[in-house]
């Protein structure tokens, strides 16, 4: 009976994960299509681009990857750029690992880890209050992974038929999703508001200040995230009477 209850609960968590993955699917589809189209345009073999979506599964680094390939960059350059671009997932996965439901099977870890992207991390960390259910995470990851690959395939097959303004118009989708996730929490709690704004400010400095522009966007995101989270841990509990 107990066992059956657990299985049913796992089933509902998985479905919740699938549902929570809908905004990611909407956001991934046009970007993945754009990736497929760009790969075609740059003359990258379709099977190479498809394999990239299947086993690398990390948006920005795939765009950089195919651009560098088309320029004939050294393999080490491409691999190193990919590593640095995706290093931020280390911070995100650390958060997920610490907040996973207690007693999550070790066997699931390789699958849970493979699906961590900016987007799955954002949805899981903000929408799962308290502990993160592994089944929720698997449903979420599956949605993201499927739509990323469906989009890539669509882009590769139909590269000449897709109007650019549609893809451009939808480029905002994932940013809107991030806004939809973070703004409600910024409304209520002041350290969270300060942390999110601080991260934006630090990242803007790297973007707008010419002397700092030698820092690549991928490092800028890591540095901004760490700085703002440090500020958060400094502010944490300040001003509260009931703090131990």
């Amino acid at each position, binding site marked *: 009976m107990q066992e059956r209850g657990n299985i049913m609960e796992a089933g509902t968590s998985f479905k919740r994960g699938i549902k929570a993955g809908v905004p990611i699917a909407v956001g991934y589809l046009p970007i993945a299509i754009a990736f497929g189209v760009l790969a075609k345009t740059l003359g990258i073999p379709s099977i190479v681009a498809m394999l990239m979506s299947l086993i*690398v599964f990390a948006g920005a680094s795939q765009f950089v990857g195919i651009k560098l390939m088309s320029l004939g960059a050294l393999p080490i350059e491409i691999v190193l750029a990919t590593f640095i671009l995706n290093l931020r997932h280390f911070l995100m996965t650390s958060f*997920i690992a610490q907040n996973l439901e207690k007693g999550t099977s070790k066997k699931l870890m390789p699958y849970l880890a493979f699906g961590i992207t900016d987007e799955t991390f954002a949805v899981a960390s903000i929408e799962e209050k308290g502990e993160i259910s592994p089944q929720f995470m698997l449903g979420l990851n599956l949605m993201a992974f499927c739509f990323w690959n469906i989009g890539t395939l669509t882009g590769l097959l139909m590269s000449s038929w897709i109007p650019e303004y549609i893809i451009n118009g939808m480029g905002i989708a994932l940013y809107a999703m991030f806004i939809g996730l973070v703004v409600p929490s910024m409304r209520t709690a002041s350290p969270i508001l300060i942390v999110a704004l601080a991260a934006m400010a630090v990242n803007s400095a790297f973007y707008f200040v010419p002397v700092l522009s030698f820092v690549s966007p991928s490092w800028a995101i890591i540095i901004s995230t760490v700085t703002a989270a440090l500020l958060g841990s400094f502010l944490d509990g300040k001003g509260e009477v009931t703090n131990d």
Partner: protein
Amino acid sequence: MTRLFVIVILMALVTYIPRLIPMLFLNGIKLPAKLEVFLKYIPYAALGALIFPGILDSTGDRLTAAVGGLVSIIFAYYRLNVIFVVFGGIGGVLLCNWLI
């Protein structure tokens, strides 16, 4: 062609390792309190950094991006479901594109 396959496989490896290591070693481990508080703020810090200023370059036109972003912020402020925030943002961009 083989060369490209090898590059993709190496890309997959260097992407997977930073995703896997914390999952294998940090799950179920009690971290020092300070590190725990630091991690607690990672989602908000990461989201802030991911949103801005990247959003400005998301549509190929800063004006449409700003309008789409503003619509998203308003929808999110009123706690609309994330999917409506997403469609609101896209709608804002398309509308702005159509007007200019």
